[in-house]
């Protein structure tokens, strides 16, 4: 009971909603860095996944590597990166860079693996029928394979987004901003209201992101793929 009351009180306190350390600016930090990492990860992983899915080339090697990558704990990735990034910039190299790189590195595999599986899973007969109608390879990829694989592609992006939001939270341990700061500070100050307030905010952000992705998916995926077959 105490915990809930303390959390509610912390969240309701107008002072916590102001200034550079307030909830809105920390939330913006969290969202901006997550967004940038997701975008960078998608720009690298999506084309690669689509290409190996369409051609089938190198798929075994790339997918196995990506899956092994996936098993790495975020915390270890950030820690391992610190020695390298501090060489580049002793200041930001300890805070922003390792977390950012870890976010990108960890968001890539689910995007890549799902893009590959989605495209490779499109019925070969269908692709051949498209080719037989005189579609060029790029027209097959963008006009047939991607639209049909969209639900799978979107799942990869959704998983990556949630992954990125979680990793950004861990980054606070390394002095990275974002909502994780509240958890670190709450813990350090033995302020349970702040600690659980931070947890609640991260959870809500993750849920909101999930919801946004699901809505977008519903809009983009053809009803021909989601409708149930005629009786």
């Amino acid at each position: 009971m105490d915990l809930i009351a303390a959390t509610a009180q912390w969240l309701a306190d107008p002072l916590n909603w102001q200034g550079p350390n307030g909830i809105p600016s920390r939330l913006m930090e969290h969202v901006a860095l997550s967004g940038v990492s997701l975008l960078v990860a998608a720009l690298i992983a999506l084309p690669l996944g689509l290409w190996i899915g369409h051609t089938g080339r190198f798929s075994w090697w790339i997918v196995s590597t990506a899956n092994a990558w996936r098993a790495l704990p975020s915390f270890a990735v950030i820690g391992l990166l610190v020695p390298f990034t501090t060489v580049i910039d002793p200041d930001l190299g300890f805070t922003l860079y390792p977390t950012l790189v870890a976010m990108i590195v960890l968001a890539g595999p689910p995007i890549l693996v799902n893009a590959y599986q989605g495209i490779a899973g499109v019925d070969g007969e269908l692709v051949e029928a498209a080719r037989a109608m005189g579609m060029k390879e790029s027209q097959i990829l963008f006009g047939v394979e991607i639209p049909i694989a969209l639900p799978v592609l979107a799942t990869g992006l959704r998983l990556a987004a949630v992954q990125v939001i979680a990793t950004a939270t861990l980054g606070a341990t390394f002095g990275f901003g974002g909502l994780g700061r509240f958890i670190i500070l709450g813990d350090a100050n033995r302020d349970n209201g702040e600690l659980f307030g931070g947890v609640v905010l991260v959870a809500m952000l993750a849920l909101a992101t999930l919801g946004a992705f699901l809505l977008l998916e519903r809009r983009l995926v053809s009803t021909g793929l989601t409708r149930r077959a005629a009786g």
Partner: protein
Amino acid sequence: MTVRETGHARAASLEFHGVTKRYGRGESAHGAVNDLSFAVPAGAICVLVGPSGCGKTTSLKMVNRLIEPTEGQILLDGVNVMTENVTALRRRIGYVIQQVGLLPHLTVGRNVAIVPSLMGWSKQRQSARTDELLSLVGLDPERYRGRYPVQLSGGERQRVGVARALAADPPLMLMDEPFAAVDPIVRERLQDEFLRLQHELAKTILFVTHDIDEAIKMGDLIAVMEAGGRLAQFGSPDSVLAHPASDFVAQFVGEDRGLKRLSLVTIADLSLEPSAARPGLPTFGPGTKLRDALSVLLAADTSGGVALDDAGKPRGFVTVDAIASALAEGRGTVANP
């Protein structure tokens, strides 16, 4: 190579010259198609028929270059298909497969308009053509153009598949077991509709089936293939039934090949003793198949019936014996395509 202007559509002639397809190399090499040669005149339906694995699909796919032949040439209107631009070639060859291959994320209308849109037709022309084709295959455009493939029955999907293949008015159609996925009653209706359609369109059609009855019904010409991708016999359905070239063909067309020929020959093909009207006896129009005439005669338990000419006047006296001897003499021949 003659190119025949038929109605609003142009049809192309198709020739196979020593076409061979081998898979694998050295020891493991095996021929899927072996030295296949035949010619299909413009506007005819040629059916490739044979047991599973005899190379029918491979032969078909070499025409639109989904598969490249190891040896030999395929000429479309006298031009080797290997020398043409591959996408341009494919856009003027209609393609229908068993699973239809409709794109599930596009509506029926957009599916039918795929090739026209690839060819850059205006939206207006595309939608006019789509509606025209849906009506042609017996689907009300108002009801069907906005539906998705999952919302169609198997038979409706096949019709859309045929409409889509016809969209850009191709001079050649390739059809790989197009009616195999539907039940026998629907199949028969689709076959009849397709033959009626073909009567107007007069496309050149290469049609694959493993069902000899379908081959006899659909083909102006049939190419019987046997294991190893060899051509066992090529000719009109009636000549294949009447004179099988080998034991394999005789066995493949069936012990009942004599009976099968009854569906190919009509009353008009019989030469008969003249006859006056005979009240009480069954009458047969010139288009009546011998199979149906025989069935009527056996069921009615009469000595014979009266054949009518085009004007409905009595032309001759038809008996069970007359039908039997027509088949025996091989006199009843199907009109050439």
